[in-house]
């Protein structure tokens, strides 16, 4: 249940679906605060990043201070405070991936996108990130685009992956 005394501007931060998800989530735990980390991640999925408004909203809904939310949020590497691209490309370069050419794959992404680590392309479609082990060691080198895994990559697969997502952007535009 949302707080009827909440200031009106905070109501638009979460979509009705996200608000409902939050309400269902807090019910599951013995302590309300346990919903904090999943909630931050789900809010980020919807809004794109943890904006000040998101932090305020999550704090209000959990019933803790904004400072407490920030204290937790800054700990977790998947949570970000600036917008990423629509498709965030995360290249694992940890040992198993490194041994099978992850840095070469990463370099190719850098060349094709023209951005470096945590960079966002000018059109806002892609961002690039070098990440630690994503749990796909036996299918290395692996990357994640948002939450989708791509396994056993070679540098020459890079342009193909990028065009797949570019096509997705195009079809979304058409449907909009």
């Amino acid at each position: 249940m949302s707080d009827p005394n909440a200031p009106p501007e905070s109501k638009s931060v979460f979509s009705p679906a996200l608000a409902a998800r939050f309400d269902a989530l807090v019910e599951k735990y013995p302590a309300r605060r346990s919903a904090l980390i999943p909630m931050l991640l789900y809010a980020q999925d919807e809004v794109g990043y943890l904006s000040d408004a998101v932090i305020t909203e999550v704090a209000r809904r959990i019933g803790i201070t904004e400072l407490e939310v920030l204290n937790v949020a800054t700990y977790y590497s998947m949570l970000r405070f600036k917008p990423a691209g629509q498709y965030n490309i995360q290249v694992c370069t940890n040992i198993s991936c490194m041994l099978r050419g992850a840095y070469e794959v990463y370099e190719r992404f850098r060349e094709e996108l023209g951005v470096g680590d945590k960079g966002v392309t000018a059109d806002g479609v892609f961002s690039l990130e070098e990440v630690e082990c994503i749990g796909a060691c036996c299918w290395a080198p692996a990357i994640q685009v948002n939450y989708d895994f791509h396994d056993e990559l070679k540098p020459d697969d890079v342009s193909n992956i990028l065009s797949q997502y570019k096509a997705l952007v195009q079809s979304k535009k058409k449907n909009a």
Partner: protein
Amino acid sequence: MPKLVTHPDEVKIVSRRFGMGAEKIDRHIELGGYEAVKKCLAQGSDWIIEEMKASNLRGRGGAGFSAGMKWSFVPKQSAKPKYILVNGDESEPGTCKDHLIFLHDPHSIIEGTIIAGLAVGAQMGFIYLRGEYRYLLQIMERAVADAYARGFLGKNIFGSDKEFQIVTQTGAGAYEVGEESALMESLEGKRGIPRIKPPFPAVVGLYGGPTVINNAETIATVPHVIQMGAAAYAAIGTPRNGGTRLFGLSGHIEHPGVYELPMGYNLKKMIYEVGGGIPGGRKLKAVVPGGSSTPVLLPEEIDIGMDFDQVGKAGSMLGSGGVVVIDDQTCMVEFALRTISFYAHESCGWCIPCREGTDWLKKSLTRFHAGFGAPSDIDNIAYLAENMLGRTFCPLGDAAAMPTIAFVKKFRKEFEDHLNGKPCPFAREGMPQLTVVRCRTREVV
């Protein structure tokens, strides 16, 4: 979709239902699923714990502690609710076994969690998956919902007087949360910082209640142990190391993948026969036997059985079962640097030996690898690492220090080859290089 591999030497127990559509509840039941829970409901808690002890099933997360013993530490009477916690925060570099369990057999995790609950008298379980495993979380959520719909979870499970609830939880990117007490902190909505022990989780754990925390593979193994019987399971492995385990072969190996092999399987055979050896006719240089935190082994050290005791005797650890194979074209200084960079990134910063130690090791190795090292750096790196050992709140400090000590000790010659401004002898195109920024005078370009 990650590739599934197979080899005739495999003994498929945990991976028995992989690739058979068992993520669907009907198919899972068709393949013998949930029978073990019914057996446990009939037999009662003392029987379950005795079976688990007799099975010699040891924790698959890395520490290798007896699962039955762990369960037996939970007090029978408790004023606070007891909890079961499944650790699926799989983040140890080289490890991707739980990935396949969540993908192919999520119900085995639910079964194992219920059985653990029946054994210790808990009514609630949490399944914690790392944040990156979103698609696996969705599979797990689906499985939990299906189990509720069938009456396998909730009040009066399987028509009994027992209650059991399961909640799935996502992390948001943190290796440290794989440490049991840090995971509890994270599940309570806090920074993933380890707690001081004692008290141990079995007495004071999640929300202050007695808690059993097991690795996802351990939990997924439980129903199979119950079904086949502890004695039959224990007979598969070596003494004190029951059953099989999921070994992940990665790195420079012809057929990488997750293979389920009996405990004590020979490492050399695993690399050359199961994994098909080193690609491109190159030679083996080193093996990391159980995830990046385990000390590296040299080719002459790998004729050993892969169980907790034998690998320990060889000066390393069985760890998470992630075997990383390294060929002779690899620079071990770069490998050491990449390993320590990870621990420096993941150190939670709570205690100083780990926070500062990993950072300085990273700095020293970065400079060293770029050819700007001094002869004294080699001993300094080892000295720094040795001084982290055993002096940190949680095992992350040790996890960073142990492999570093081994790299220096076993590959000293390679460190020396990087000295005197020589570039890395293994330099190749696209390799990350250190850009040395020298101080300028005040002119601004």
